[in-house]
Each structure stands twice: as C-alpha cells, then as structure tokens.
C-alpha cells in the first residue's frame, strides 16, 4: 500500500447518480486483494477535507495499441453521489490530479472447496464483488451473483459480471428489473438448491443482517464487507470500529473496519450490537 499521486483517465455517469472513475495506477493491480479499498481525495484544495473510502471495483490496463503510449495500468471506482464529497468527485475530469491511499484493509478469503460460491450484492455494494468473482473464476470456480437493488437504476455492471462467466440473478424491490422482491429471498432459494455454499455479501446494513441470519441458521460460511465513517484508513484513529464477537465493556473487542476489515467473517462480528444506526 502506498499513496498514489496520479490522474483521472475517465469519469462518467453510468446510471442516474452512479459514476465510474478510471484512475491511472501503475503497479496497483498486483497489490490488490479482492475486497480491499482506497482512501481517495482530489489533489486541489477543496471545501471537503477528509479522504473518502471507496472499494476497488476493478483493475485493468490500456493496451499500447490504443494510442501508441506504453501500456498503462489503471484502477476503477464505482461510486454513488450521496453528499458533498461524492458530488465534487462527479465534477472531476480526465487529467485532474487525485490521490489514492491503498490498497487498504483486509479483503475476502477464498476457500477452494467444491461448494457453491454465492456473491450477494445490494446496490453500490456490488463494487468489491467484481474482483472477487474474477479471482474465484481464475481459481476454476463457478460463481453466482445475486444482485439486488431498489429499482433498475440500482442494478449496476451486471453484464460485466456475465462477461466473466458469472451466473447472475437480478432482483429489484419494485420489479422494474429482474425478479420483484428482496435479494435475500433469492439467496434462500439458492441455498435450498446448494446447501453446501459459501456466501460473500456487501450492501446496506439491513440486507447484511438478513443475510447473516439466513446463513447462520443454515450454518453456511459468510463473509461480509462493512462500511464505517473513516478518517485515517490505516488503523490509527479508531474512528471506524465495529463491535466484534464477545465484545463487552470489560473485555472490549472493537475491530477496525479499515484494518481488520472491511471484509469480516460473519462470526467475527457481534451482530446483536453492531451499533449501527438508522442513517447508515
């Protein structure tokens, strides 16, 4: 991990409110594990101060023949405009200078078993699942993506997963795309079909909590990627902690989302008292 001082190659709106930013990042791909994240900030001085944490959607390389230049490695962010920082990001252009701290944190752990690999993504939560799918497929596994969202607009990049050879199942709350209903219902069906499975999930807290229950009763191993407000991203400020299993005032077991996470095995966490509040 290091602090990349680099430039934007592209920054486009791919769905209403969802943007995709491609950033020049030589040597980044080799360092990344699926599920890791970066702390991002534009270089010029801005009204916002702190860096913003973002998952690493994918990495790649511009082939030399594109434009004569030597091959250039890049990494991509997929982000949703929710506040001032992400609004400012959406106003950046190719060539603007940005800083990336990363790759940071603890990613997904892949088990080379014959059990089904079920990836569950809610909205923007699909971001860390792409590199995971890529890696699992490289290891010769078949991968199934269960992708949920409020409406069709919240279903992102599914075709890219399919191009990898991932079997995708889309569901939306309003039925505007794929099956109508919650992604967790699809998950229950799949687990009925594949009792031997490993689940990897990322999305809003209520979805993760539901997924955790479903997996617990079926004793299916689960890994989740969490979000937390972060200041440093490197385990120094302790601003991003979550309550770990067996946490108590006397025997505190706070885990840093930025360092021990963002990906946790479900049984590392204290699901009863994650201390997550309404707005998150």
């Amino acid at each position, binding site marked *: 991990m290091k602090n990349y001082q680099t430039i934007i190659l592209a920054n486009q709106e791919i769905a209403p409110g969802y943007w995709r930013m491609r950033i020049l990042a030589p040597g980044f791909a080799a360092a990344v594990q699926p599920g890791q994240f970066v702390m991002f900030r534009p270089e010029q001085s801005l009204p916002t*101060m702190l860096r913003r944490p973002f998952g690493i959607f994918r990495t790649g390389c511009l082939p030399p023949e594109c434009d004569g230049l030597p091959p250039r490695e890049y990494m991509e962010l997929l982000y949703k405009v929710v506040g001032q920082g992400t609004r400012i990001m959406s106003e950046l252009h190719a060539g603007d200078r940005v800083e990336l701290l990363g790759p940071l944190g603890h990613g997904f752990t892949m088990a080379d078993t014959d059990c089904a690999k079920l990836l569950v993504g809610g909205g923007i939560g699909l971001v860390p699942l792409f590199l995971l799918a890529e890696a699992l497929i490289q290891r010769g596994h078949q991968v199934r993506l269960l992708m949920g969202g409020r409406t069709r607009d919240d279903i992102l990049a599914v075709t890219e997963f399919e191009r990898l050879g991932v079997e995708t199942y889309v569901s939306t709350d309003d039925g505007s795309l794929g099956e109508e209903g919650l992604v967790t219902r699809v998950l229950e069906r799949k687990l009925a079909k594949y009792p031997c499975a490993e689940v990897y999930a990322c999305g809003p807290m209520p979805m993760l909590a539901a997924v955790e229950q479903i997996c617990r009763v079926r004793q299916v191993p689960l890994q989740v990627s969490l979000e937390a*407000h*972060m200041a440093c*991203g490197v385990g120094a*400020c*302790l*601003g991003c902690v979550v309550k770990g299993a067996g946490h108590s005032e006397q025997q*505190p077991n*706070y885990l840093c989302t930025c360092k021990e996470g963002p990906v946790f095995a479900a049984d590392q966490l204290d699901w009863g008292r994650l201390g997550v509040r309404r707005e998150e």
Partner: protein
Amino acid sequence: MAEKRPSLAVEVAGLKLRNPVMPASGTFGYGQEFAPYLDLRRLGAIVTKGLSLKPKAGNPMPRIAETTSGMLNAIGLQNVGVDAFVTDKTRDYRELDTPVIANFFGNTLDEYGEVARRLADVPEVAAVELNISCPNVKQGGIVFGTDPRAAAEVVTLVRRQLSKPLIVKLTPNVTDITVIARAVEEAGADAISCINTITGMAVDIRTRQPKIANRTGGLSGPAIRPIAVRMVHQVVQAVRIPVIGIGGIMTASDALEFLIVGARAVQVGTANFVDPAAMLAIIDGIEAFLIEEGLNDVNQVIGSLKT
C-alpha cells in the same frame, strides 16, 4: 548562508529534537501504522495514542464526522492499556532514534499516578504527555484540566512518579487558559502542549440525530487553528517553560504561525488523515522558509512575533 542547510533542531524540556514537528496524540496510532507512508526517523518525535491503566473500550459508533474544515471525534480514548503498550508496542521503537512521547490519562487521580509509575522506567519512552482533558469520575465528572486546583493536583502527583520530562497537555475548553498553564507550571510541568480538541456537535437534519453517537465530540482541524494560535500565544506569555503548539496545522505556513508566536515545537493531528506524509511536507516547508528568509536556525523564528 544559503550554502549549508539551516538547522531545524530544537530542545523541549531537555529533549533534543531533530526538528520541531511531531504527531498529535491519537492521530498517529502508536507510530507503526504510518511507517509505510513516511520514514519515522525524519520526525522530531513520536507521540502515542493516549494510554490508560486498563484497556479502554471507547465510545459507540459513529465516532467521527466531518464538519466545515474540521472533524468531530468521540473515540472515547480507546486504547490497549499501558501494560499491553509496554509489552507489545515499545519493541518497535528500539531501532528508531526518534524520541517517543507516551501520552496518557486517567479517570481518577490514582489512575493517573499509577499509569505514570508504570511508564517511569520504560527505556523506550523518552518523555510523557499528560492529558488532563478528562473528567474526574470521583468528582462528579469535572474535567481536571478546567480547574487550576485539580490540574495542579494531578501534575504534582504524576511529577512524583517519574523523572522523565513531563509535558502537560491543556484543554481549550476554559475561560482563561493562562490560569491553568501557570498552575501546571508551578506544579512541576517541564513543558505545556496545547490545544486539545474543542467540544463540538453536529446534527443530521434528516434523522434529527447527532452525527456522533456520543452526541458531542472534539473538534479538530484547520477550523480551530486561529483559536489554537491565540491560546498558544497567551500561554507563551504566561509561563517560562516551553510550549508545544497544536491545532489545525496542515501546512508549513500553519506550523510557522505557532513557532512565530513562541511555540518551541508543534504537533500535527488531523492533517495526518488528509495526507499520511503531511509531516514530511511540513518539515521540508519549514526548511524552505528558513532558506527563503535567509535564516540558518529555526530558533530564530521561534517567538519572533512583531507587534
């Protein structure tokens, strides 16, 4: 003059520092967290996360929120406890020749004394920084650092426990910081560092909830710099012992404001989050300033305020 590089070395309470720049407690972990991003050997000193007698759980989430040019934090002083620090963390400091300053606190007078005692003979700890911005649970939660008598009492007690240089860190949440400064000086402090965070609050207007679970948090960052510069200026006028300036330092120019009003050294906090190598840029910027101004020693800048 432009020939040889200017000297950045300063001395604070007997500590010889290669330059006046060090991290502010709680923003730099125990140091190793930032090792990948900057060479710890270039810093004037390392200041640890605040240590307490027992491991401390800290506050519920969310613990941080960004405000305009600042941030609120209510970490709740979560830390591994002084014993775990001594056994697990100090090892990393051995190969560094950068002095380590252990920041600590207590919930009662006795706790303060006991932590001091356990740090007294730790060879890897060059000095201690006493955080008196904590409520005294034995005295209806009145914050030690807001009452000159309570402040002097803690300092006197801690002073008895150790011979290491003793830096006392003041809270800005007081009517007249010079009263507290003089009290801790008389009680035996070797140096004063200020300021700690200013209590603040932010509200999520949609949920109607405080943005921080603890309701209020400590405000830090560039927003508070003018308040910090003012208080450091006041304290420098009020006491004879050296003062370490803290509060909203993001750039070399910010650091120089503190040095000019008389701070012997500075601590950098929130800036470490914005840029993990911020302190290196600040050190280089101070050197560049000295060269531009034709000065050969940073001590020529310290206390150079004209009025």
